[in-house]
């Protein structure tokens, strides 16, 4: 934090944006469940059957930082960004973005305790660069990485 005399560090600004957008969108969501009905994932991933409105309310709870239900967390965790929810929302909310934010909050991105297991890949950057050395020439690496 800069004491209000300059721009926030990117990380702090991102945390603030996640929290503020989450709160704004959670306040607009009516938890009608239309997004859940439109989502292909509950059937595809065989999620436990639950009333769509209850699942949506659970997702909204994750988004707003309220105590989360198992149904809501399962819906958030099963989001694969299919985007079918947006067209289904009667309030024309960007539900896919809401689910992304809820996923970040569930993973503890803003510094809160994670609500779901977080997959970590500490070797990600090393692996990406190793493959680059295996598939690109030295000249390509110097220009493209």
């Amino acid at each position: 934090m800069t004491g209000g005399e300059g721009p926030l560090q990117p990380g702090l600004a991102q945390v603030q944006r996640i929290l503020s957008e989450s709160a704004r969108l959670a306040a607009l969501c009516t938890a009608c469940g239309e997004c859940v009905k439109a989502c292909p994932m509950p059937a595809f991933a065989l999620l436990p059957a639950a009333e769509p409105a209850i699942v949506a309310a659970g997702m909204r709870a994750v988004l707003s930082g309220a105590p989360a239900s198992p149904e809501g967390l399962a819906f958030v965790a099963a989001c694969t960004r299919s985007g079918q929810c947006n067209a289904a929302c009667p309030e024309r909310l960007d539900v896919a973005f809401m689910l992304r934010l809820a996923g970040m909050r569930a993973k503890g991105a803003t510094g809160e305790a994670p609500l779901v297991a977080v997959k970590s890949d500490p070797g990600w950057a090393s692996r990406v660069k190793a493959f680059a050395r295996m598939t690109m020439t030295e000249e390509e690496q110097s220009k493209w990485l």
Partner: protein
Amino acid sequence: MAVSDQAGVTFWYGCNMTRHGELVRLTMRLLQAVGVSADASGGPAACCGSPKEADARISAGMAARTVQAFNARGSRQVATWCPSCHMNMQDFMAPATPANFETLHVTQVLHQHREALRPLLRHTVPARVMLHRHLGFDSRVPVNDCVAGLLEMIPGLELTLQPPLPGHMCWSLGNVPGALARGQQETLDAMAAAGADTLCTIFHSCHREGVGLERTHPIRVKNWVHLLAEAAGWDFTDDYKTWRNAADPRAEVGAGGIAAAGDVVFDRLVEPELRKAPLV
């Protein structure tokens, strides 16, 4: 959204595309062939931050550095490959760090220039191809139609369309238990029903997860860029597919490749991936 030929384009291929150096190389060649001046950028130093999204402080720092680097390049347009990068740019990166460029997808660029590409596609590619499609991202950028439009210009190629799978690419299905295996089985079933012999992937993660199907099923798996390159008569090899399907990936990569990766990194991070068995 018109592509500006003069201003130059940054082809932002993402991070995990380094497995497929030939796709970066061939895409650059396609852009050059249609008159688009482009530089390529990717790898961890040009990350969108999504691999570290469980920590906003880390991911936002990575994202800010990438936008600042693209601004410094002076390109007025950034053409993405990876849908995660593209969405992250629009949803988080540009809103946080003002971008002096517009973001579009590389399939849009090539589709807009398809008439310049058409005369280059002189070689027949005799294949009955099923285009592997996903629902997500297509609602933001019409990648499924763009790629189909490009493939339809290839002589000899018969195109069939897979009913779109959930997710924005196979990587996202891989994060939900059982979903990727089901998606791959639905893909194989759709190919069998359509009599397709070749699966055409659009994104790198679908290709990465799909190439292993050649080990267990009588099909070929190619990316749309591979098919365009074949039609143009350009030589290339899909090394990742060769390694992934080898009985002994270590022997297939060879001493030179292992040394390039680094012995320890190859042992710990690369070889386990190359030895992953197909899911279906």
